[in-house]
């Protein structure tokens, strides 16, 4: 416990000193806040203009989470399909790789064309950003399931569905959660890209307008909000991951099961 507290304190000190260093360097070299605002200026902007920023933050969080949820559903279903069928693997993998190589900024105008500007394109962009890592990880997890574990079920005359439910999916959980942590941050990227291009709400839009009026502290305030939301989501999934997949790291505190 002593060791963990020390590690924690050390990491907090390092992170804080990064911001202090930023602040000090800006002061020493007299950097204009139009180029790079100091952390203190950003915090003040966040504080004073909070009522204006807040609705945008909520909007971005909302589109991101909806897109993320849709991405999980579609990603898991596709991953199961690809991971359990040779044909689906051969067909879907090239398509997926091709699709994920397309810059998502290029897709946003198409969504706008179909659904109009605003919330829907943001949700969809967040969704397609996070599908790929989820699909790849779920499919890999299923494919990596030890044949011996499946044999245990097959000698019991278990159906394919029972094998998937009792062996394949639990075995895939560590891979799935690893992908969720990546996907959660990607979902923010997707939502903000779309808001920047085609929306009148959201942090992306806020930053767009702020930068066009050279309100750089507000741009950075937007970045801070995004970073904070991203960290919060990441931490949330890490927490769930520890509870669900503690068996994979043989954690002594893991008491899952049923």
């Amino acid at each position: 416990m002593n060791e963990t507290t020390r590690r924690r304190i050390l990491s907090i000190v390092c992170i804080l000193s990064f911001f202090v260093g930023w602040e000090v360097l800006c002061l020493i070299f007299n950097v204009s806040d139009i180029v790079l605002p100091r952390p203190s200026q950003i915090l003040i902007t966040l504080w004073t203009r909070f009522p204006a920023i807040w609705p945008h933050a909520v909007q971005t969080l909302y589109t991101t989470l909806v897109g993320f949820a849709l991405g999980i559903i579609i990603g898991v279903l596709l991953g199961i399909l690809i991971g359990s069928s040779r044909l689906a693997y051969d067909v879907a993998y090239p398509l997926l790789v091709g699709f994920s190589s397309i810059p998502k900024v290029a897709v946003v105008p198409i969504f706008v064309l179909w659904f109009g500007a605003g919330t829907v394109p943001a949700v969809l962009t967040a969704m397609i950003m996070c599908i790929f890592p989820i699909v790849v990880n779920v499919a890999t997890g299923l494919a990596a399931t030890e044949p011996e574990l499946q044999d245990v079920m097959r000698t019991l005359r278990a159906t394919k569905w029972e094998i998937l439910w009792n062996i394949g999916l639990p075995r895939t959980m560590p891979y799935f959660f690893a992908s969720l942590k990546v996907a959660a941050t990607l979902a923010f990227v997707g939502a903000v890209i779309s808001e920047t291009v085609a929306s009148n709400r959201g942090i992306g839009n806020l930053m767009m307008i702020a930068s066009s009026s050279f309100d750089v502290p507000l741009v950075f305030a937007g970045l801070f909000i995004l970073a904070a939301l991203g960290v919060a989501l990441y931490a949330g999934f890490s927490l769930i991951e520890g509870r669900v997949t503690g068996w994979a790291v043989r954690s002594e505190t893991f008491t899952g099961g049923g």
Partner: protein
Amino acid sequence: MMDASVALPVGNVIDLEKVRVTFGGAKNQVTALAETSLRISHGEFVALVGPSGCGKSTILKLVAGTLKATEGHVFVAGREVGAESARVGMAFQNPTLLPWLNIRDNVMMPLKIVPPFKKDFSRKRRTEYRDRVEQSLARVGLAGFGDKFPWQLSGGMQQRASLCRALIHDPTLLLLDEPFGALDQFTREELWEIMQQLWIDKRPTVLLVTHDLKEAAYLASRIAVMQARPGRIVDDSVVPFSRPRTIEISFQPDFVSLTQRLRERIMAARAAQEATP
């Protein structure tokens, strides 16, 4: 004392009819099992012994339904294997416990899958089935370990749990793929005794794959010797010793001469195998 050959119900539990198994394509075809026929009746305890690569495990997989015969037919309980047939329990060389479930839930798994236990699973999992698992664990010396996870147990304890899982649903056919192979001698002998007692109590049909002749002679009522390249059965003999057998029996002349004869048979098989390219 009970004789192994007395009062068994008629009919075969396992019936391999002219089965052949080959792997690979036309060019580099490997015959894992040459044309083989094997019949095992109700309540028999049959051991398959032989050098490695002789197709022992292939026969087991055929019966388990995890491998399809290239030619011939495999009947289990009178029906072609693969369809719903006998209630099968299987223990493997490795414990193959599921790492995300604790020992209790691991052992309970067959009750979740196999009818008729399956339909009451959600209702009885916390009461009747739980007691059943605890009793089973207690029997192999694992009382109180139900809440542990597999990695918290030693290899021998995991293997005991794996045996519990193979037996929890009262299988009529028990398939054992060298389940005692990776254990130390004392644990092994202890589990032999437990295994024998279980067989005497419930009288399942057992097919045991092993390379340990002492184990085969101690446990089985019949021993089939196999030879490799191509895999086939070259000897099939009845083990006459009365039950329950004790470890002391393994030092008696009859027992020693039986294992000695089996050993010579396998040595001859190995020599023949090395002679062929």
